[in-house]
């Protein structure tokens, strides 16, 4: 079948239009809820924004996280796991004091992922840094490597785990950004608790979403990463530091 020039141009335009629009159509689909059969996508990058000016002396985020994830203490602060902690700062020169929550920063270039010998420490497609407990051998090299001290090693037998959050002796763990909640389109427990009972200092969202609330706020207001000189491109950003 031979095409004359007019038909050829028309066909070319149609194909090009289709090629241009098709990814856009796909994108609109993904911005809505992810179904269980779909895998996590690189089109999203989950992150947190924490406004330290609004952060009070409460510990609601810590309590909520540990309750949600079944992280219980044993009265041994040196070896008990902590997924999130409140840090108190006081400037040595000026005396200015503030407080903020510190958890896994979900870096885009995580040192913990680089050093893990078995690949158990990994970054999911949507930016969440996790430990695959099935492969973790408990060598603790990632604990040495984390610039934020975010990781904990489980020093004792664990019982009474939450069904959504498996954890066990001899492996390493850290904040999962409540991945089991995110996959159900909910917010991390700390963010929800802060919004309900705390200073409303924490915001969760998609750093990759062009017109998303989080991205807009980051564009309009100043924010910073912790240890920015390491160039890790963290998913957790802070204001007021």
């Amino acid at each position, binding site marked *: 079948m031979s095409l004359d020039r007019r038909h050829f141009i028309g066909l070319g335009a149609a194909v090009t239009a289709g090629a241009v629009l098709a990814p856009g159509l796909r994108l609109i689909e993904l911005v809505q809820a992810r179904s269980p059969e779909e895998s996590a996508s690189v089109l999203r990058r989950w992150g947190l924004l924490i406004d330290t000016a609004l952060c009070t002396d409460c510990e609601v985020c810590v309590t909520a996280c540990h309750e949600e994830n079944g992280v219980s203490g044993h009265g041994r602060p040196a070896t008990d796991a902590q997924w999130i902690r409140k840090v108190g700062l006081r400037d040595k020169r000026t005396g200015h004091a503030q407080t903020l929550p510190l958890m896994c920063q979900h870096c885009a270039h995580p040192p913990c992922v680089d050093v893990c010998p078995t690949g158990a420490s990994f970054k999911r497609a949507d930016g969440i840094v996790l430990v695959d407990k099935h492969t973790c051998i408990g060598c603790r090299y990632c604990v040495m490597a984390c610039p934020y001290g975010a990781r904990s090693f489980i020093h004792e037998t664990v019982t*009474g*785990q939450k069904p959504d959050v498996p954890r066990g002796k001899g492996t390493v763990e850290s904040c999962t950004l409540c991945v089991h909640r995110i996959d159900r389109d909910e917010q991390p427990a700390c963010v929800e608790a802060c919004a309900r009972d705390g200073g409303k200092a924490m915001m969760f969202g998609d750093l990759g979403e062009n017109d998303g609330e989080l991205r807009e706020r980051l564009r309009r207001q100043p924010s910073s990463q912790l240890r920015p000189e390491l160039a890790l491109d963290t998913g957790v950003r802070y204001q007021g530091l």
Partner: protein
Amino acid sequence: MMGLLAVLLTAAGVALAGDKQPARVALPVIKIEKGEKCVEPTAEMRRNHMNLISHQRDRTVHDGIRTVKHSLKNCVDCHASPKTNSVLGKDGFCESCHAYAAVRMDCFECHSSAPRKAASAPLAERRAP
């Protein structure tokens, strides 16, 4: 291979149980108390459940794919004994068979052996008085 051996031993044990002699090793207690049937045929489950779980876990952990059919949480929700609220213990669904077949299972070092209650409700609703 191990699964096949387990099946053979179980079959032999069940057959022998018809005799008056007591079994040397306690036979597995297989009580199905919930649901009409499993997500896969019984014979396939006996042989292959470990492969299904292993495959699913990589998809869930690394890709975030949380289909329910082969999810371990789903298995536990159904198979946990209503009395003990667990798949472990002397007559637990998983443990009694594994003890009989002498195959060590690692799963419940980390995974909860109890079924979910009011499954996956958001924190706020769960805290409601």
